[in-house]
């Protein structure tokens, strides 16, 4: 197959443009990222610099791959990461526009690579259970209703790729934050830090410069793990609860 690729090239943090590349001899059975590998092999052979893009596991679980393909984060398929997209999904001769995830909170690094460490910083603010190694009780002393464990797992399936931010018209990170808040709020183990967690993660999220959720549901549609909007609703609920009921709001903020 043959394609016309329009790929975003950018050296440093500023400036960049779409550059056109023709590529042919592509089997429909190669993945989208393998097609970019082929392009890079050819570019390097010709003495040109390879297109920088992130990827690692290439089986849809590490969350390292990104890309906005023809205007859609992770390409046209639902519930799939870019690394799980195959060229048979395109028509011979298609023009394919490839851009990085764009958001103020994801500053560009090079070409299609962006810095998503803002997401780590949000988790560092409270996306954990504070327990030191060695102090855990016997696992079966805490029963977790099966349906809660299942719903917690639905939320915990997030791979932290940032597609929700990339897809959101407002570049909001509410689905990412909502998924972590929900995961831990649904488990009894997460209970003691419930209020403190949501307040601290919200504060960090805002300070990273993400936009505000307007319930467009684009995030849910773009999520490779099909994390549901209900996680955002739960985040809102948890936040309201914590704001109104947390007894010592100031203290819980400072210690967070």
């Amino acid at each position: 197959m043959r394609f016309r690729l329009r790929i975003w090239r950018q050296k440093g943090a500023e400036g960049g443009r779409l550059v056109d590349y023709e590529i042919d001899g592509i089997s429909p059975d190669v993945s989208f990222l393998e097609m970019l590998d082929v392009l890079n092999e050819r570019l390097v052979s010709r003495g040109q610099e390879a297109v920088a893009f992130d990827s690692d596991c290439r089986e849809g679980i590490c969350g390292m791959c990104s890309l906005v393909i023809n205007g859609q984060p992770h390409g046209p398929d639902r519930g799939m990461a870019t690394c799980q997209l195959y060229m048979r999904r395109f028509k011979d001769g298609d023009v394919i526009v490839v851009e990085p995830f764009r958001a103020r909170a994801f500053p560009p690094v090079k070409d299609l690579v962006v810095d998503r460490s803002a997401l780590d910083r949000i988790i560092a603010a409270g996306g954990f259970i504070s327990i030191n190694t060695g102090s855990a009780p016997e696992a079966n002393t805490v029963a977790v209703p099966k349906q809660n464990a299942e719903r917690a797992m639905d939320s915990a399936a997030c791979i932290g790729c940032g597609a929700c931010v990339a897809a959101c018209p407002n570049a909001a990170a509410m689905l990412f934050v909502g998924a972590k808040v929900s995961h831990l709020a649904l488990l009894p183990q997460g209970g003691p830090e419930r209020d403190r967690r949501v307040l601290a993660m919200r504060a960090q999220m805002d300070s990273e410069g993400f936009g505000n959720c307007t319930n467009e549901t684009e995030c849910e549609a773009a999520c490779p793990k099909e994390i549901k909007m209900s996680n955002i609703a739960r985040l809102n609920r948890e936040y309201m609860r914590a704001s109104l009921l947390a007894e010592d709001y100031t203290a819980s903020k400072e210690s967070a």
Partner: protein
Amino acid sequence: MGVLSSLLTSSIGRKILVALAGLLLCGFLIAHLGGNLLLIYGEGPFNRYAQGLEKNPLLPLAEVGLAGLFLAHIAVSLKLRHENRQARPASYAMQRSKGGRSWGSRTMLLSGLLLLSFLVVHVWHFRVQEHADGLYRAVMNAFQSKYYVLFYVAAMAALGLHLSHGFQSAFRTFGLSHPRLLPMIRKTGFAFSAAITVGFALLPLWACFWAKGPR
């Protein structure tokens, strides 16, 4: 930082504020539509209703409250909108929905601004200006202008579009996500926006094409 100030400064808090104001305004819409429908009963009942309202000593208080709601809803929305713009300084060369957005959600700003301009004209026309012949005649005369009717109907269509997203979005912002309740809210939202649009838009159309002037 206290609860109230966090409500005004945090992303989620401000969204809750917008949603709360929006839903209260929905309540106002219902009351307003109820009053408007009295037009059909003719000059007497309608003017009696209007004068009753005007004479009520609590009216100024209600009007200030209403203005506050509008102001909060609009100002905070615009502020959020501005931040959302800033959250993506470099825009995509190509952006295509994966199936989440609706026409309502896409056009919130547009429909909102149209409604704002309508609001200014509407308040000027029917609230600020004096109506020597009574409000009934003022309304029925105004609806003789096809342009005005068109503007009015367009604004009501925008209102419907605005509500089709806003209604359910507000409930989501309040944290509603129950798998059975949420579809009901969505349907209710659509029905509500349709009813409001049709209800408000019918009156000018009726006045202009059916009643053909005051009677």
